């Protein structure tokens, strides 16, 4: 059992949701500079797998380990090293985009407002940094969530359907960011329906029914 010394490995994870055997012995490996694309029809447990990987959901059987250690023993260090973008953009409607970033990223690392504005600029929503999140469109909110992932400077990206509500420019931008993240030595696990146009070695994991 060669658990990747410097990456993420998931071994034979089983999860039941009531009577449904959602994850049946799923295993995967993710090393730095690699991108894993998880696809499959709806309801095959893609999001459940992501929640197991990020440590929110503890599987009935199987093991998730980071740098060779089980994540339950190194929970806070592991979660400090990852950035998770869930299906919804997860922003507080009453807070401005900048405040959302400050309160989210500020818990992970000391960051200045300038840096945050720069990452918002990078994802093309610099103009609405001071607008409350509830007035932004779904696409803009997705870009703010992307800016948050960028600002966190995490080594492991866990993205659940990052392309929803994004226009073609947004999809290209996300591809670019993923590319530069993986080139810079980071790892990424992306759950998405359609194919990714990222010219880096993309490994695929198909979750069948």
């Amino acid at each position: 059992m060669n658990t990747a010394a410097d990456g993420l490995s998931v071994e034979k994870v089983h999860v039941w949701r009531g009577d449904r055997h959602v994850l049946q012995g799923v295993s995967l490996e993710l090393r730095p500079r690699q991108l894993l694309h998880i696809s499959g029809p709806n309801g095959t447990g893609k999001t459940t797998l992501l929640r197991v990987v990020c440590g929110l959901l503890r599987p009935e059987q199987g093991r998730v380990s980071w740098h060779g250690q089980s994540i339950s023993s190194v929970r806070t260090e592991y979660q400090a090293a990852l950035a998770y973008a869930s299906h919804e953009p997860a922003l507080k409607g009453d807070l401005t985009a900048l405040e959302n970033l400050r309160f989210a990223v500020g818990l992970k690392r000391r960051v200045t407002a300038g840096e945050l504005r720069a990452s918002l600029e990078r994802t093309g929503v610099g103009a609405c940094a001071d607008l409350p999140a509830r007035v932004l469109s779904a696409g803009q909110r997705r870009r703010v969530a992307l800016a948050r992932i960028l600002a966190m400077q995490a080594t492991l990206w866990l993205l659940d359907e990052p392309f929803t509500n994004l226009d073609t420019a947004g999809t290209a931008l996300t591809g670019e960011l993923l590319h530069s993240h993986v080139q810079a030595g980071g790892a990424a696990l992306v759950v998405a329906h359609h194919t990714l146009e990222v010219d880096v070695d993309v490994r695929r994991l198909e979750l069948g029914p």
Partner: protein
Amino acid sequence: MTVREIMWTWFYKLASPPYVYGASAALAPWALGGAALAMGYGLIAGLAIAPPDYQQGEAVRMIYVHVPSAMLSLTVYTLMAAASAVALIWRIKVGHAVAAASAPIGASFTILALVTGSLWGRPMWGTYWAWDPRLTSELILLFLYVGVMSLRLAFEDPSRGDRAAALLAIVGVVNVPIVHFSVVWWNSLHQGATIVRLGAPKMPGSMLWPLLSMWLGFMLFFAAVLCIRLQGEVLNRERQSTWVREAVKS
């Protein structure tokens, strides 16, 4: 095998659902028989042979039902909390099944203790409810039971409902002594220290034996009903596993 190994295999066996299902199926009739015997003697002795109380007269015969059910209501809650703690800490599913099975039985004993308590208090107090400290804590215990049971049912995913109810049972059991102490403190505030002792202070042997045997009868009855309910709870939680098919086919 050293003592440690015996303990460990015993503990491991208790954690495996098929063993628990089989054991409780075998144990239930014996426990029920024992309960019938103990309660039979307790009833006959308590109602006919034991002397009336010098103060309360024949009314004291109600303690043979009130005191065991009141004690049981507390013991069952503590057992439920212990099973929940085992299940939550060591992630043993059978613990949740035991907690889920014992909750309704404990709640029914609490209701029994409340009704018999107020019936017993009626001749002394002149009313059915006089905020007696023990009955008030019994009432709060009933609220704790209802809280645990409704929380367990509120979740669609049964395993999450189990864990939430387990945590509430543990939080509840920590609060039971606090509630009891504060109710006694509050009651001494109003009625002063001269509370009529509900339990007889020093009981002659002829009254003590029926009470003990009724208590034993209630304990065995609880064990029997728990074994029956436990089989249902284990089946509900293990419906997908293979051993259930053999167990159910026969």
